[in-house]
């Protein structure tokens, strides 16, 4: 038996198509040349035959007629023409998306700019109101010059120190 014939018999075994004669030949060949043995040959042959003999699904007797009448129906059915999209439709469709995207971006940018301007204006208004208060103070109390505040820290420290000295002096006086 040639290698080719052996391969054929092996495939027939897998497909469950071995008749008794071919099965005998295959087994004889495998016995004489163990290097060609198929693992689990009995199981393989049995499984092949089982799958081969598995009953096929039944088919309705009127199946062909049913399909043909369905085809007939589809062919005689009036075809409703579907308007094919033109290049203009395609462009418009694309344009709509683009315009929508640009509009969203513009709205976002506008909102950011508006928020920025509003906060900038608010800060400016605060500064103006502070300046106007100082200007009003100067108008009401012209003797109070801004210079009186320049040594404010020193004066505050002097007060604290004097309080400290007073305590010391009081303690010395008490001791006497």
């Amino acid at each position, binding site marked *: 038996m040639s290698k080719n014939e052996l391969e054929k018999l092996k495939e027939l075994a897998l497909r469950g198509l071995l008749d008794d004669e071919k099965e005998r030949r295959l087994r004889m060949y495998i016995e004489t040349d163990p290097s060609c043995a198929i693992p689990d040959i009995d199981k393989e042959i049995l499984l092949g035959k089982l799958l081969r003999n*598995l009953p096929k699904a039944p088919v309705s007797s009127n*199946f062909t007629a049913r399909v*043909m009448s369905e085809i007939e129906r589809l062919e005689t059915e009036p075809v409703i023409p579907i308007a094919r999209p033109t290049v203009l439709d395609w462009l418009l469709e694309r344009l709509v998306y683009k315009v929508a995207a640009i509009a969203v971006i513009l709205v976002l940018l506008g909102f950011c700019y508006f928020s920025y301007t509003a906060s900038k204006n608010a800060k400016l208004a605060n500064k103006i109101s502070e300046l106007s208060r100082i200007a009003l103070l100067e108008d009401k109390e012209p003797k109070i010059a801004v210079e009186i505040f320049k040594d404010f820290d020193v004066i505050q420290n002097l007060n604290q120190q004097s309080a400290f000295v007073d305590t010391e002096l009081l303690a010395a006086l008490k001791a006497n």
Partner: protein
Amino acid sequence: MQTAKNSDPDIALILEIKKGKKEVFAVLIDKYKKPLINLLFRLVHDQTEAEDLAQATFVQVYKSLDKFNFSSRFSTWIFTIARNLALNELRRRSRHPADSMELEVESDEGIIIHQYEDKRSPVPCDHLIKEELFKKVEEALSKLPENQRTAIILFQQEDMSYEEIAEVLGCSVSATKSLIHRARETLKAILKPYLQTGQWEEDKHLKNKKEP
């Protein structure tokens, strides 16, 4: 690319249909309805659904026949369309699981099993055993992944070559061989009790029980 024009046995029929002989399509339906419904039934596990899908396949084939350019065999083309329709149906089912019309009962292990009305008339015992065995094989087949199941059915029941199966599945020939090998290994493992003894253990057990 080598065309299947010369080797396709359906070429003459297709050319006649293309010329306008619509009635010739019935010949193609008669030729392919059994294998198609057989495959579809094993994919969707519902006889009516399988026939509906087969009908949809034939209608689709008829509508697209003008586009068929004989780059592949007609048989692989029709099986590819049928498989794609079945896959769509399975996907649709997974999205919208419908309640089954059949009775469902819970087994001892808590697994829901389907019960079908037995319309068969009383038959001899060996026939029952054979039917029971085929039921086991069907159950084992249903446990395989879809691509392995399709591959093994086309290999064992429709006598398709590895190349044709590869075309239907949209994978390489080596991948197809591997799918069939894995499917057979799984089936051997599931059907081990029968394949070892040539008879189901539980069948033997039942027989022993019946004997006085």
